[in-house]
């Protein structure tokens, strides 16, 4: 089971990528995915991290499914 993880701005700079495919176990939550990624890239831990799942802001409790799109980013700063 695979999902796509996207990075933008600061998180893309820190991870050195914009999109990775990640293999996940069944019943994994969005928050577990992002915690794993933060563990892999510890510099992310010094930022407030937000996530979206399938282009909606996510609380983290959501169970991710095969093919889902999860994005990991810092607080938005458009405008």
């Amino acid at each position, binding site marked *: 089971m695979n999902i796509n993880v*996207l990075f*933008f*701005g*600061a998180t*893309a*700079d820190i991870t050195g990528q914009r999109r990775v495919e990640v293999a996940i176990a069944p019943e994994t939550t*969005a*928050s577990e995915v*992002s915690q794993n990624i*933060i563990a892999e890239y510890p510099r992310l*831990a010094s*930022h*407030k*991290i*937000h*996530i*979206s799942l399938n*282009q*909606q*802001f*996510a*609380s*983290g409790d959501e169970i991710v499914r095969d093919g889902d799109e999860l*994005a990991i*980013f*810092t*607080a*938005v*700063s*458009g*405008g």
Partner: protein
Amino acid sequence: MDFFELTSNPIDIARVSRRVVPSECGATVTLDGYARKYTKDKASGEIRETEYLEYEAYEAMALKEMQKLIDAAKQQFEIANVGIVHRIGRLDIGETSVVISVAAPHRKPAFAACEWLIRELKRTVPIWKKEVYSDGEKWIEGDAETPEDVTK
């Protein structure tokens, strides 16, 4: 008719504000936000001179959030049409980064809706700004409450 766009071209604010006007309206309020030369670092208070900006968007989600903002604004305020255009890519100092125009029969709800829309856009639309200085660069992290901070 409402519209919302991301563009990597310069924004013509008069065109934006005129696209939202139906014949029963009398006022359009427009916010023009643009790249500022001097900014104050929120933590240190230090004033830095920006050379240029770069905006990056999570485009598919940004367009969905912009649609939600317009729907919510039209529920809350007596307004006719809303136009939002956000620039992405590199912007020189003084260039428009975002325009929000709200047309309404009367000016009060147009002011209220425009002010609400820019506040919410800065909080919920997934776009990030990088300031580039002569000696470095920095991705800005918004100070408004972006939904659902998963680290807290």
